[in-house]
């Protein structure tokens, strides 16, 4: 096909089929805009579904089953030693979890008449995208484009070497094997989640973190119960330690840990963060601009770039790189394009670390409140006093509320404990709707549930 032969005209062209992209596309279609999605793999779901949130949660569920089974010995139930078969596990994750959800998204796209075009979308100018797929070229002229190209794992210079034994999170999720000795570089949520999975499956996990604590940036009192837990399940945790270099030596990887000498591993997982995929999109042919640090696409509160025809959502627009932030942004853009008064002005974006125990938070913590000039009052409720926590043998949790002392408004919540990721939903609603601590305290919470800890913490704050 000769270039320029085929020019499609659409209202909205979405570049990238991840959560931000498909949320935007579906909502655009619902609002009557003719919409296409351009995705390199010609599928909807993106990193979240195929190499991130979903497969990692499937594996973490398996890890939780294993650790619950081990804990059951405490109350006199012994399942014996688990036998793990990787093939059925991979197949279950790939077909019953990821495949099923992918087919679901494809079905929704079909029902909403959103065409998914395979290929790499490159901007030629502010109204045209070139879709490259092999030697086939297709052009799409759009009224508006939404860039939702997401992020990819960052490499570590001198450490990320060309060896299948050195994996990023995407490769690690494929479960190539259960290595006997695994080095995890990075004590952020990806390193901790994947380390938890491999530890549960039987690997001896060594975790190395450059800063002096796990989950940098997260409240220490929330991290503490997790730290105690991973201290038990990981072979070693080296904080304040850098990996200077790694080498492949035969079927092993030799790693130089600064100040700790050299250690040998069977595999290495590099989990030092993710970075925006904003390059190679032809954005220089448009008026959209990137930030100097991080190369994020700059957007306003309508998710519009400096090019009035081009919008961007999700990881490519900056932190926090979370699928649900991208999804909300995607819906906002669709409404903006349909002429509705939408804006991405959310106050509370929940974040969840799906470790055991889980850590979740939303809104402001004490330090952030202080730096914003808000006089904050904090209340902590230890799960040792929760009936429900006792019945599941998990009294290691904590629920923490941060309130504006003057107005009594709830401005932030942090939770650590099993199910924190679900519990944070109520907290997010409360913060987003500007609820008072009194509102939470006066709302009836089912007994006995872990959600009562929010009510208890609120009551403590009221005094």
């Amino acid at each position, binding site marked *: 096909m000769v270039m320029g032969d085929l020019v499609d005209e659409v209202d909205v062209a979405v570049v990238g089929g991840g959560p931000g992209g498909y949320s935007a596309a579906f909502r655009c279609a619902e609002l009557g805009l003719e919409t296409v999605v351009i995705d390199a793999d010609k599928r909807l779901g993106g990193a979240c579904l195929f190499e991130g949130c979903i497969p990692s949660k499937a594996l973490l569920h398996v890890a939780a089953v294993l650790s619950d089974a081990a804990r059951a010995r405490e109350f006199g139930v012994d399942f014996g030693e688990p036998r793990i078969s990787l093939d059925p596990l991979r197949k279950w994750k790939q077909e019953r979890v990821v495949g099923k959800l992918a087919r679901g998204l494809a079905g929704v796209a079909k029902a909403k008449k959103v065409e998914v075009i395979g290929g790499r979308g490159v901007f030629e100018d502010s109204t045209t995208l070139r879709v490259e797929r092999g030697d086939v070229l297709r052009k799409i002229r759009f009224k508006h484009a939404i860039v939702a190209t997401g992020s990819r794992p960052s490499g570590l210079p001198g450490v990320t070497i060309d060896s299948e034994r050195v994996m990023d999170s995407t490769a690690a999720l494929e479960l190539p094997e259960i290595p006997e000795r695994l080095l995890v570089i990075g004590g952020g949520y990806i390193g901790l989640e994947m380390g938890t999975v491999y530890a549960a499956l039987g690997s001896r996990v060594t975790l190395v973190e450059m800063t002096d604590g796990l989950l940098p940036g997260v409240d220490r009192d929330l991290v503490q119960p997790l730290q105690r837990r991973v201290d038990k399940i990981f072979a070693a945790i080296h904080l304040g330690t850098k990996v200077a270099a790694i080498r492949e030596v035969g079927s092993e990887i030799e790693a130089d840990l600064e100040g700790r000498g050299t250690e040998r591993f069977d595999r290495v997982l590099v989990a030092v963060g993710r970075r925006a995929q904003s390059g190679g999109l032809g954005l220089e042919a448009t008026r959209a601009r990137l930030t100097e640090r991080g190369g994020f696409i700059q957007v306003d509160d309508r998710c519009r770039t400096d090019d009035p025809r081009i919008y961007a959502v999700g990881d490519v627009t900056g932190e926090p790189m979370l699928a649900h932030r991208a999804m909300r942004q995607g819906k906002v853009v669709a409404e903006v394009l349909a*002429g509705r*008064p939408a*804006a991405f*002005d*959310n106050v509370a974006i929940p974040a969840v670390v799906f470790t055991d125990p889980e850590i979740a938070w939303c809104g402001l913590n004490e330090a952030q409140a202080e730096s914003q000039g808000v006089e904050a009052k904090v209340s902590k409720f230890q799960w040792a006093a929760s009936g429900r926590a006792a019945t599941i043998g998990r009294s290691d949790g904590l629920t923490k509320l941060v309130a504006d002392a003057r*107005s009594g408004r709830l401005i932030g919540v942090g939770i650590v404990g099993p199910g924190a990721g679900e519990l944070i939903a109520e907290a997010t609603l409360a913060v987003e709707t*500007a609820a008072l601590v*009194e509102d939470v305290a006066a709302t009836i919470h089912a007994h006995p549930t872990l959600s009562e800890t929010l009510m208890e913490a609120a009551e403590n704050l009221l005094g």
Partner: protein
Amino acid sequence: MPRQFALPDLGEGLTEAEIIAVLVREGDVIKEDAPLLEVETDKAQVEIPSPIAGRVEQIHVQPGQTVKVGAVLVTFSDDGAATRSAPAAAAAPRGAPARPAAPTPPASPAPAAGPVAATPATRRLARELGVDLKTVGGTGPGGRVLDGDVRAAAPTPRATPGATPPPAKPAAPAGTARPLASVGLETPPLPRFEQWGPVERAPLSHLRRTIAERMTLSATLIPHVTHFDRADITDLDAIITRNLEAARAKGVTLTLTGFILKAAALALRDHPQFNASLDPAAGELILKRYHHLGVAVATDRGLIVPVLRDVDQKPVLEIARELAALAQRVREGKAALEDLRGGTFTITNIGALGGTAAIPIINYPEVAILGVARARLEPVVRQGQIVPRLLLPLTLTFDHRVADGADGARFATEIVSRLEAPERLLWEW
């Protein structure tokens, strides 16, 4: 402890009111529900009862002043008489939905740093109305900004169904002069008229301001088209004359307006796009499945448009009866807010004042208005003969965004044909 009483939320769209009279004096000890103030909104003149029993410590407003919803009107001290301990929330004026808006806390907390406390839906409303939330003081719990706070801060009063239509005689000058709210167009500066002779400046009354703002909004926003027609009402007039006494025996004065209302409501059923509102943001026409017609009524204070409900479903006699009662309530300033809103189409009859035709401005957010001028006997050619017939000039003005000239002509013809063959009104409802 002194309690402050603020102007309550007066209902959808109303953001301010003019103080007509203060019915208490400082130092008075009054009972709960005793008349406190008389205020006029662009909808009605209403009496505001006292939310609590107590001594009036301070009156913060005076007649002629225009106050926003939420402004403090009166401070009570609770010595002298027992006060109700619960917040006196049910102090909304007659006819307005009761809303918890009355006594405001002495001072809402100073705006805190960080995001404004408001629910996502309220934030959306603020964007819709072009209000910067940071500039709005919240009256909700913990200083939360409520929908009512946003509406009160909106730059242009939102027009609502049943709003005031064509200008009539000006109300008495009152209040202090303030700039009119604009709809986005800047008014060019005026020349210095003093250079050509002496001038005088008179502030606009509340009603006149409202009319000015509404008419500017409608005329600026809506591309108006007017279709002219005439109905031969010789037969209808004879029917009215013949049945005048019989109707009066039932306590009803038959008027031409009653028949026009009925004819218009029936025609609207067949032409729903004239019984609608345009939502340009959504790109949708909102078709109303009810036919509530507004009728312009002249009062001492100016023109007001009460609304008759479900006109298409009522016999003419009933319409005439309701219209007379409604007009009387309006003239006496006793109309409830409910009498004045929810209209879907307006009729304005300027026939009593003369003229041959007038082009009314649409009562936003409706999309059409019917102007009726004075019926006159005119020579008409019928079967080659010149005969005297009673002709009623009609002007249908409508929003060209929702209908075209041909639609307007067809709709007008439907009204005319019913007025010319009044027997149709007997069996259609």
